[in-house]
């Protein structure tokens, strides 16, 4: 028997097709995706998720048709019963046992790695905060400075001053989170140019984050190793509002509005923290 027909025979067999696609999917997820420009390694949890999805898809493929299902099962049954495959059977038995043992060991072995964490980048804001002892209701709150359109240039100039005096070292000259100190932080300072930060938020949310900074966030927002200070200790309410004004003006984003807020997700089909 020459090599080519044998390969072709295997390639046409549903069992080996399934194995091949599984291996291919693994190669793509683990090695090809990180090679793409601007990409990075895929976390193990996501690899597992993708592989399970592919596996389920393959099982559906091999079993949605009687004939294919029967052919798919052939090699499995052969390994389990045929006398000539006694070696393969024994090897399989050993491999499966060892694999289960290894997985079980990996699950219970003690490690010193930090636990994986979920962090929601935009935790739910409180309805009300206390800013220097004064209660501020965040719900429905607009930037009060916008109520005086004639003075906006003045406020913007003021906000610019506040930004360059306080925010520049981390959030950078281009408001892109690439300040001089940025590389020293994990998580990185927010990139306001990105459409995933202030572009997604109401100004009152930004006010809350500037005023309260990293400490004291709700549990879902931790571990918030953020170096963001509690700016309420250093800036006045007006200064914070003016710097927010500056952020939106400079980046060109529009703050999320209240009235027409239709919910960023749908409970039936929406999800997560985008």
């Amino acid at each position, binding site marked *: 028997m020459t090599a080519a027909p044998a390969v072709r025979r295997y390639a046409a067999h549903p069992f080996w097709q399934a194995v091949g696609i599984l291996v291919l999917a693994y190669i793509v997820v683990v090695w090809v995706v990180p090679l793409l420009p601007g990409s990075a390694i895929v976390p193990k949890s996501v690899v597992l998720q993708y592989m399970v999805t592919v596996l389920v898809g393959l099982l559906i493929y091999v079993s949605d048709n009687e004939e294919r299902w029967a052919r798919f099962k052939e090699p499995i049954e052969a390994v389990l019963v045929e006398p000539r495959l006694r070696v393969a059977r024994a090897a399989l038995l050993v491999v499966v046992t060892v694999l289960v043992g290894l997985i079980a060991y990996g699950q219970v072995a003690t490690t010193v790695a930090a636990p994986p964490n979920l962090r929601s980048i935009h935790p739910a804001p409180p309805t009300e905060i206390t800013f220097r002892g004064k209660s501020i209701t965040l719900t429905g709150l607009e930037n009060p400075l916008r109520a005086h359109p004639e003075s906006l240039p003045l406020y913007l100039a003021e906000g610019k001053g506040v930004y360059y005096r306080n925010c520049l070292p981390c959030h950078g000259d281009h408001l892109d989170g690439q300040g001089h100190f940025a590389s020293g932080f994990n998580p990185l300072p927010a990139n306001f140019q990105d459409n995933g930060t202030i572009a997604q938020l109401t100004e009152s949310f930004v006010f809350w984050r500037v005023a309260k900074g990293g400490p004291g966030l709700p549990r879902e927002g931790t571990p918030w190793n953020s170096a963001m200070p509690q700016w309420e200790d250093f800036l006045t309410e007006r200064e914070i509002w003016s710097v927010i004004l500056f952020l939106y003006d400079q980046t060109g984003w529009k703050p999320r509005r209240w009235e027409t807020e239709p919910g960023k997700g749908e409970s039936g089909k*929406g999800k997560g923290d985008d």
Partner: protein
Amino acid sequence: MTEHLLLGLQAAADTTRAYGEFPLIGARAAVWIAAEVHLMFAAFVLGVPMFAVVAEAIGIFGKDQRYDRLAKEFTRLLLVAYSATAIWGAVLVFFLATLYPKFWAYLTAVFGPSMWAYAGLFFCESFTLYLYYYGWDRWKYGRPKLGHWSLGLLLNLWGTIVMFIANSWLTYMMTPPRDITPTTDPATIKLWHAIANATWMPINVHRLIANVVFGGAIVAAYASYRFLAAKTDEERAHYDWMGYVGNFIAISALIVLPFAGYWLGREIYQYDQSMGITMMGGFMSWLWVIQAFLIAVLFLTGNYYLWIGMGRIPGAERFRPYTKYLLIVLVLGAIVWGTPHTMIADSKELAAMGGSHHPFLGALGVMSAKNTAVNLMILTTFLSFLLYRRANTRPVVPWAKSGTMIQGAMFALAAGVVLFYGIRGYFVEAIVRIGFSVYQVLAVLGCIVAVTVIDVLMGRGAQSLGAIQWGKMPPRSQYALFILAVTFTWLMGLMGFARSGIRQYWHVWQVVQDTSKYAATPALGYASKMISLCVLIFLTLVGFVFWLGGLAEKSTFVATGDREGGGGGRHVGH
């Protein structure tokens, strides 16, 4: 410090005798189980009459006795599940009154009269149901049959009102009208004002549809069990068909459900943005990843069932080669749909990714990608169904070829619109992007409606390639129906947790605070155990109740000839 102390005393006074304790599992778990199992039974009991009435109508107006038998069999399931609903409802009320007496007193102060109305309507509903079922054979033909059918309508009417009343209580807990504060005396709250709160109608509509989905799924599971237990080919054929109908009802109603969910989510956001963020982006954000996984299971299993089902349709071989492409779209869709935006990663991976967002795959984790994926999955499922429907016919109308091409173009157009807005969503601000999902949805719905209309017209007088060989199904297709039923039930529990959990430590959002020791909202792991437990209790009871139904009387399936009454009686044996 005195202030602190006073607050402490106040809290203690609030808590004294406000809460009871339940042995072993605790008060919250007890109420959770009672409410959830009651709700599952209630959903079944409300969903099934809807399609029982439709099935009866098809039987009457389409002169197809098969549907009439089916409707009666649905109703028989209903009858036995009905008392279980009432029992669990009573358990829930007793648990609330004894474990949360103070909060219960508050609710009764606000909603008292509506509770009396509820009891009265429940009474009407029960007796209408008895009349509907036991009058089936008496008013079988002619004018009385129409009267009987209107009894079914009446049954639905009572059920819907009863559900709307109960919904008002729980939506009030989520979104009490804004003018009600912690100091408002509950006795002064106008009843209608409390009932007509922000999320009442969205929940009503959402539950109405979800009940149909759920009823269909449970009926399908019932049929699949009877299929597996069947001993004759005729019986198998009947239950195969019943399972197919149940599954069809469930999946088609499921396709509409996200839009009702969208409306509900929107109302929640408009009512209180922080509640909305808690739900979608806060501590519950991972709940939606789990939900995505469950929905992916539903899509894949639903399609799987259809594809296996093609095996019993002569002529379906023509379409078989295409199912693998549909499968590829579905798997890719499930991958995108399940990609989390904030990934679980250890410190090394986090460092490599520069944060918990993957620099490349993170793009798949945002709304635009997910809406695109799910809309394409809906389209694919619809296409699967269309192929299934078309399988044993060959259209004979002269414009068949161009009709098929128009249908194809519509699919392409809808997919194009979905992809276009999905990609464009990355380049616009949030508020515009949210609007895009509406266009995507409209494109998909429009395609579904238009293609169906064309298909029905085209199917007129179509040449048949042979009747569907009902009953010629491998057992694994029936197990797929079980997975669907379990997944639907679990999903219902999960969504219930989401709806109830976003209230966090409030009985009534920002009006009545939960000061019990169970005030914290549990993590997803604990919730999932509770949900699994509730599902297990429900399925066990439902299985038992159905078994009882089979024990007490003969199946409505009447085998022709010698094997009279094969279905029901035989179940005694196993």
